[in-house]
């Protein structure tokens, strides 16, 4: 029963440069965050693009990292370990907690997502994130 609340460590699944972020605030509500909720996070670990992009690309990788360790950013929860029941009675549960970083206007910072996201994002008007995702459930 892992609820997504303050101090939860989440995976960041976009290519903004953050790998692991920590939730420091759930916005506009005093409860645990669900899929589609907006949270404020602190970047704890940066993604290392080195081996993927190959040698000589180190300058570009550092530039590709749009966020740095210690940055405070907004994010949208896209997967939760906590079970989430839908209106038709089916329940969905993922094996990890994950989020996508966004700017204050609500647009995603990264340009690509890797990994499945919950369909609840459509209901919460996050269709831009949904269209970036390779798969949704």
């Amino acid at each position, binding site marked *: 029963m892992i609820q997504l609340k303050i101090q939860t460590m989440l995976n960041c699944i976009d290519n903004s440069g953050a790998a692991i972020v920590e939730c420091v605030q759930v916005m506009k509500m005093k409860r645990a965050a669900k899929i589609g909720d907006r949270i404020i996070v602190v970047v704890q670990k940066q993604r290392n693009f080195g081996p993927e992009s190959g040698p000589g690309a180190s300058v570009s990788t550092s530039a590709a990292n749009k966020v740095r360790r210690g940055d405070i950013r907004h994010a949208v929860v896209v997967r939760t370990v906590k079970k989430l029941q839908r209106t038709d*009675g089916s329940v969905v549960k993922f094996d990890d907690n994950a989020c996508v970083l966004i700017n204050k206007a609500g647009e995603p910072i990264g340009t690509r997502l890797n990994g499945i996201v919950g369909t609840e994002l459509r209901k919460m008007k996050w269709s831009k994130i949904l269209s970036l995702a390779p798969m949704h459930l």
Partner: protein
Amino acid sequence: MAPTTHSLRPLSCWKPIFRHTRLQKTATRSLTTQITQIKPKRTFEESRAIAPKRRSNFKILGPPPALKFKEPIKDVTAAQIAILDPTNARSNLFSKTNPEAAHVGDILLVRLKTGDPFAGVCINIRRRGIDTGILLRNELTRIGVEMWFKIYSPNVEGIEVVQRKEKRARRARLTYMRKPKHDMGSVQNIVLAYQRSRGALRGNGGAGTLGKDELKGGKRKIKGKGKK
């Protein structure tokens, strides 16, 4: 009765006439020996029975009938299942008595009316009458995903058994399959092979829309994998 009474009625004077009648009256009064029998009061039902039958619009009902349902909740459940599963196919697929039924450990494919079909290893069957549900686990884009489906849900179009477990599972709930040691990983390849074989079978007898849908779902999944 001291004064003697005349047997004949005096004719001339009023006084003896009155006296005579008065005496006679007292005699009758004092001699009353016959007791008129007091009839016992009739009960309402008796009087109803005796009373002449009148036509009335007022219906008199008998006692209420005995309770029809011995186990009301069971009957309601049966009625609901009859509505949601008229062919009994879903009940049979998960019944405990059916030897051909799906068990935990089997790979099941749930076709939905809205959205793509979902396939995964069945790790739990929760039998609760109309609320009976199954828990499927799969790995999509390297992330483990678990979904509960209500088998009688109108949103569930059909449930197919893709592959059966070779050996019967000796547990009712295979939650240990969440652990990395026992995790089956992705079952997409098995499901895709099954869908292709089904599509081929359908192709011989005229391609159905269902087969096409399945193929489409399969293609989408491949794309998702390729991207990653």
